[in-house]
Structure formats: structure tokens, C-alpha cells
């Protein structure tokens, strides 16, 4: 084993020092939380109504059942959002004068659906359109609630795709055009593949947000995990089912968030 250089020895010492500082400050903060919070006068009551083990054990199987509804709605909404978001992005960047109405439509679409809170869109579309007198099963809250999510998220996803399209250097377009490719081919073969790859981490974050917002459909009927937790809460007069629902979300979103961060970091490294 080669003897470490003077610099390596110094850096190793620095690393040890930072580790000790980070470790001890973490322990201190945790200890403070564990010791101090239970000393608060209301802790016993809070513990009984938010962190009740019996209630949690009873609630968990039903919450997990209900969470499958979330997964289902997510599973059919996400691909639709990707497709519609891309179409809107392309419509907004269309240059041909014949497609001018499409540009206007794209701009209006993103303005409206980014401007209205998701829950309002869910309510208005989820109750409004079926109210027009559609027969079953076409008036299902699953269909129209999902559509509300798809419209809202497409508006955001479209903007991210646009920023991805902008991030492809114009010299790439020039190179493709100089080879004789037409605008459509330039977009499809050269710009879009790079644009999509550039925005994967940002789109991951949209997926995580969507995963959480699926719960908003509970307002128009579907008994997904948030509604199920609410039912159990009023049955037991205890908030622990909400904590259970939160734990289920975290079990999905924390790994997903870490993964998105990892993708971001990797992309930054590639670019630098």
C-alpha cells in the first residue's frame, strides 16, 4: 500500500472532522426532539390521537386496499399526460401560419389549466360534465376526475417539454436543416429526443406531484386512500389513519424523489 501524500493525509483528516461534526449535530437534534417533544403538556393527547398503534394496525389493511385506487388512477393518467403534454408543447411551438389557431389554443390551454387550482378543476369537470346528462358509465367520476388531472398536469408538463425543446442548442437545428431535413423531421429526429431526455428529472417531479394529487379525486366520490383515512378517522374519532395514509405516500414518494434527485445530479455532471 502506497504511503498517503501530505495532501491526502490532510484531506482524510478534514473528512473525519466533517463526519464527526455532522454526526454529532444530527444526534443532538434528534435527541432534542425525542426528549423535548414528549415533555410538552399536550403530548399524551397528541400521541393518542395521531400515533395510536392499535388504530394504525386496524386501519392499514383498508388504507392499502384504498391505495390501489390511487395507483390505478395514476397508472392510466400518467401516460395520457405525457402524450397530451407533448402535443400541447408542439402546438405552442408551431410556426406555420395555418397552425396559428393551434398556437392560440395551446397558449389558452396552459394559461387556464395552470391558473386554476387542481381541486377546482376536479370539481368543475368531475361534477359539471356528468351533469350535462351523460348516461352511465360515461358519467363516472373516475373518468372525469382523471380527465381533470390529465388536463391540469398536461399544462405543466407541456411547459417543461417546451423548456426542454428550448434547451436544445439552435446549432443542432441548423445542422439538421443543412442536411436537408424539413422542420417536422428536425423536430422529430433531432430536437425532441434530446429535449425529452433533458427534462426527464423535471418530469419525474411532476409524476411525484401527480401521485399525491390523485387524492383530490376523493372529493368527487372515489374512495381512495385519503377518503378511506377520513372515514376511519370519523369512525374512530382519531387522526392516526391520516398518519397511516401519509406513511403510505412517503413509502412511494421518498424513493421516487431520491431517484429524481439522482437523475438531476447525474445530468448536471454530464453537462459540466
Amino acid at each position, binding site marked *: 500500500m502506497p504511503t498517503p501524500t501530505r495532501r491526502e493525509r490532510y484531506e482524510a483528516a478534514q473528512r473525519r472532522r466533517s463526519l464527526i461534526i455532522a454526526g454529532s449535530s444530527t444526534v443532538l437534534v434528534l435527541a432534542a426532539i425525542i426528549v423535548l417533544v414528549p415533555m410538552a403538556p399536550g403530548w399524551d393527547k397528541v400521541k393518542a390521537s395521531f400515533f395510536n398503534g392499535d388504530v394504525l394496525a386496524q386501519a392499514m389493511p383498508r388504507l392499502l386496499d384504498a391505495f390501489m385506487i390511487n395507483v390505478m388512477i395514476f397508472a392510466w393518467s400518467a401516460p395520457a399526460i405525457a402524450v397530451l403534454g407533448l402535443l400541447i408543447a408542439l402546438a405552442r411551438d408551431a410556426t406555420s401560419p395555418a397552425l396559428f389557431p393551434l398556437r392560440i389554443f395551446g397558449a389558452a390551454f396552459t394559461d387556464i389549466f395552470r391558473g386554476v387550482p387542481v381541486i377546482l378543476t376536479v370539481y368543475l369537470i368531475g361534477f359539471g360534465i356528468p351533469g350535462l346528462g351523460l348516461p352511465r358509465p360515461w358519467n363516472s367520476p373516475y373518468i372525469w376526475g382523471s380527465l381533470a388531472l390529465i388536463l391540469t398536469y398536461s399544462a405543466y408538463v407541456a411547459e417543461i417539454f417546451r423548456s426542454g425543446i428550448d434547451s436544445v442548442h439552435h446549432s443542432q437545428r*441548423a445542422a439538421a436543416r443543412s442536411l436537408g431535413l424539413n422542420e417536422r423531421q428536425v423536430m422529430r429526429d*433531432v430536437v425532441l429526443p434530446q429535449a425529452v*431526455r433533458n427534462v426527464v428529472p423535471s418530469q419525474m417531479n411532476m409524476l411525484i406531484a401527480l401521485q399525491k394529487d390523485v387524492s383530490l379525486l376523493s372529493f368527487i366520490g372515489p374512495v381512495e386512500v385519503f377518503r378511506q383515512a377520513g372515514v376511519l378517522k370519523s369512525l374512530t374519532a382519531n387522526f392516526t389513519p391520516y398518519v397511516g395514509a401519509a406513511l403510505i405516500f412517503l413509502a412511494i414518494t421518498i424513493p421516487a424523489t431520491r431517484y429524481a434527485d439522482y437523475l438531476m445530479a447525474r445530468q448536471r455532471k454530464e453537462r459540466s
Partner: protein
Amino acid sequence: MPKLALRGVVKRFGDATVCDGIDLDVDTGQMVCLIGASGAGKSTLLRCINLLEPIDDGAIHLDGTDISEPGLDPQAVRARIGMVFQSFNLFPHMTALENALLAPRRVLGKSREEARPEVAALFDRFGLAHRMDTYPDQLSGGQQQRVAIVRALAMRPEVMLFDEITSALDPQLVGEVLDVLLALKDEGMTMVLATHEMGFARQAADKVCFLKDGKIIEEGPPETLFGAPEHPETRAFLARTLK
């Protein structure tokens, strides 16, 4: 009839006139070098010839046909004129081979299998056969620029435009790219270069044009332009550059 003929070409960006009435003839098989300081209008002129920039006045003729006619299909023209850029501009999401196959497939409508033998031969000729399946970010700058040349040649262009293609390269990699140009010249390719490589221009060009402020100040065979420049601006530029 010259292969390529520019008549009074004017290009403006807002108030700035970047090309100011340029006349230029390029004969078949000729190599013409455009020299001049940065911002003299060399690159813009090349982009105008390839119709990447529409010109404001004047005309550009290819084989006697005015290709600068507004409303003309630029794709058909660009398919006949190849262009290579300073910054390579390879498509990073495709292998070297896929880069070169894209235009034959999309523009000429060939299948991958139809286009491949000819393109592979080009890679082979320029010593890149072993790099065909490599992505651009795994290639050296010289290799990338040679792939970019192969990509343009894959369309069998009648004229090639080179926009300072060695400026972004490390000095030891410049030679391998200039060798490619010499090989193309031997084959009789018609070429227009914007370049800072004065030694190369002097050695290889059939005609050299000195540009300043969007105008061709002086043109002639390299021995005359480098050996006995007539115009004081040319002398001043060469004195600065060759010092």
C-alpha cells in the same frame, strides 16, 4: 459557367449589414478560402449559401439556377450543398453511423440497409470504421469533426461549405481534419471554406478572398494574395495574422 455564383449578396441583421454586396464565383472542383477577422461576415455568407439565412438582396446561383428565389423549397437545395460547422453539431443521441444515416434515410427515403454500405465506406475511407457505433461524446474533437464531414458527404453533395471547422480543435488534431479536405480536393469536390488556417489556405486553395465589414476587399490566387497583396487592408490583416 461557375458551379456557384454570388451576385451582390446582402444580408442584414436589424441595422447591421453583415454581407454588403458580395460577388463570388466558384468553379467546379475549386477550393475557395474566405479569410478575414472574426465578424467580417465569412460564416454568415456560408449560412446564406446554404439558405440557413434568407438573403435581403442579390442572388445566389447553383449551376445557373437562382436558389435564393424566395418561396423555393430550401430542403432540396440543402440536400445538394453540404455544410460542416465549427462546433461539429453532431446529434449526441445517435451513434456516429446513425448521425450519417439520418439524412439519406429521411431526405432521400433510403432504408437503413440501402444507405449503410455507402456510408460505411466513407467511415472506412476517413479512418473511422472502428468508431461507427460510438456516441459523439466518446469521440475526440478531430474524430467528431471527421464524422461531421462524413455525415455531410453521405448526401453526395455537389458543393461543400466548411465554417472554421478546425477552430474548436486542439492544435495537434487540426492536421487530421485538414487532411480530409485535401483528400476531397483531390477528388474534385467543389468547396468553400471560412478559415483562420492561413498556411493551409496558401498551400491548398485555388482562390482566396479577404473579407472585411461584409465586403470582399481583395481576391486572387493564394500566391498573389499572400505574396503580393494589393490592398492596404489586406496587407494590414496579413501582417497581424502572420506575425
